[in-house]
């Protein structure tokens, strides 16, 4: 008779195990609560509360979503991120394809070269761009003094192009890694099947490889877009006269000292980030199905 209780036994043992795993995440949960959730809630509160009267207000959001000045800033932010995303994709896809299909035993080295820049501080990398493109930097030195191609040094820093280039430099590895992981999972025989059925290389890529790597493109694009959207250091250092949300938030906090407005702006930035994450989750879930 005792054997009949056996099927229940594992469940009984599972409960203490589940309890224990709650204890395991407790430190992280507490940390997140005090240093992430509570400040965020505080921030959200501040964006909805009128400083003078202490009353609930939507005025800041109304201003942000209707004032052409703010709308332009948000538009510029999204446009910059979108541009960086598209360029990262155009540069990243071929690299990922090469990595998976052609690099062979060199692929480990290529991946290392890709990840290595991520290990250095973003400030270092951005300063690197400054050194390269400053008025008396390497590039201008080469063009003016060494090659004598130009009379006057070019004004390269503080330009939108260099800002985009620097952002792409930082973010392209994320794009490459996202696409690589999906490309690696594509069965070569699918491509071979297409070829046998009469598709040349280009057609095979277009009909099979590209559609099957859309998930990786989606994941990479959302990741890059999200990070570009919130990027701050690169924009502060290389600027280019761009006005983006993170820069505005910084300005509101430090210069204008309008904390309420800064809070509202960061809430909008957060909403965009959450929307991106939600999109990404949807993509991943579809892939899992």
């Amino acid at each position: 008779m005792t054997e009949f209780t056996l099927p229940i036994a594992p469940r009984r043992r599972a409960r203490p195990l589940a309890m224990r795993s709650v204890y395991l995440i407790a430190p992280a949960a507490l940390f997140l609560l005090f240093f992430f959730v509570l400040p965020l809630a505080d921030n959200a509160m501040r964006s909805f509360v009128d400083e003078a009267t202490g009353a609930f207000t939507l005025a800041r959001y109304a201003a942000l979503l209707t004032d052409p000045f703010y709308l332009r800033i948000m538009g510029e932010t999204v446009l910059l991120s979108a541009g960086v995303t598209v360029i990262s994709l155009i540069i990243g896809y071929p690299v990922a394809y090469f990595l998976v299909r052609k690099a062979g035993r060199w692929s480990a080295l290529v991946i290392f070269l890709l990840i290595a820049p991520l290990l250095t501080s973003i400030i270092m990398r951005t300063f690197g761009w400054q050194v390269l493109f400053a008025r008396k930097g390497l590039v201008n030195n080469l063009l003016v003094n060494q090659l004598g191609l130009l009379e006057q040094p070019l004004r390269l820093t503080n330009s939108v192009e260099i800002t985009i280039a620097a952002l792409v430099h930082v973010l392209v590895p994320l794009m490459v890694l996202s696409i690589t992981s999906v490309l690696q999972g594509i069965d070569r025989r699918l491509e071979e099947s297409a070829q046998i059925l009469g598709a040349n290389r280009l057609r095979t890529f277009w009909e099979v490889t590209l559609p099957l790597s859309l998930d990786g493109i989606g994941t990479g694009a959302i990741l890059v877009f999200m990070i570009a959207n919130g990027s701050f250091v690169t924009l502060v250092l290389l600027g280019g006269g761009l006005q983006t949300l993170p820069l505005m938030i910084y300005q509101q906090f430090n210069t204008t000292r309008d904390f309420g407005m800064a809070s509202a702006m960061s809430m909008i930035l957060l909403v965009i980030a959450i929307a991106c994450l939600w999109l990404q989750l949807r993509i991943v879930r579809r892939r899992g199905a």
Partner: protein
Amino acid sequence: MISTTAHNGVDAPRPARAGPASDLVLSGVSKSYGSSVAVRHLDLSIEAGHLVALLGPSGCGKTTTLRIVAGFETPDTGEVRIGGVDVIDLPPHRRSLGMVFQNYSLFPHRTVAENIGFGLRMAGVGRAERDARIQSMLDLIKLEGRGDTYPSQLSGGQQQRVALARSLVVNPKVLLLDEPLGALDRSLRESMQFEIRAMQQRLGITTLLVTHDQEEALSMADRVAVMNAGRILQVGAPSEIYDRPQTRFVAEFLGTSNILEGRASSDGRALVVPAAAGGEIVVPLGEPRTPGEALTISVRPERIALGTERQPSVVNIEGRVTGAIFRGTYAAYQVEAPGLGRELFVYRQADGPLGSVAFRLGESVVLSWTPQDVVVVASE
């Protein structure tokens, strides 16, 4: 061109769609990967409309051979001719072949109908004709009305049939099958064997089937080519390969064989197998050999009769039953012949009540066969 043929009174060539099947000829094909040789100087030809099975153990170079025909690998030497045309310099997409892989390789992002129609679309076949041909293929593989489903919603057998339809709908010159039934369970595999064979014969399509399953090769092929270590050892009709193996490897790879090694007797009419304690076992041969020649022979288990009495005018070897297994349609016995130091296998049609074996463990028996059942094989 047409007027000339008309003058000569020769029929104009028929359209490619229902055109005559092409033959496939591989000659002197070799392929190495670094220092390891995958295919060694291989010759193989398939008559138009025939199905040849390339049979061999894992790693013997079957897939490599198939991929050379398909154009995914370039051979180091040799040529591949399809319908008399050397195709070595043609890329895969211009060879007009059909290919089915073990895991079917259906496009997961396309519906069943889109999968089947893929080759037609690549060939620029118009929508109306394409739909009609997809439809008739769906009927043929008994998946009417399932055109809009995705491959992942189909069973293994159904996916297999879609893969077959996808490669056949374009009327390929040669159909290549790489372990096409490897992923199916046993009962389904058998019915698919019939199905593929029937379809292949009806369409009269030249087919190269790669398999390591001897049953599959024997039951589906017009001719079987047995391959080992990159070489083809023997090509022939299934019965010929089975009944007259030329080498020990072929005898042992196809079914079970009792292999005996020894020397021809002084009159060349028997094989003398050395036994323990200086004894010997004498096995008469069907055809005389050079006296003293070292010989290896094979006797199929089902050719051996098992009894308790010696039979007149046949080979008789006495032994003791050491193993007995009932296998449904027959019973398999292991019999130890004294002094031989190893067991012989005997298959006996199941008679008597089901589940029974006629001889018990330890029972003394007599193995008998006729000299015609003995096949002399090359020892390598």
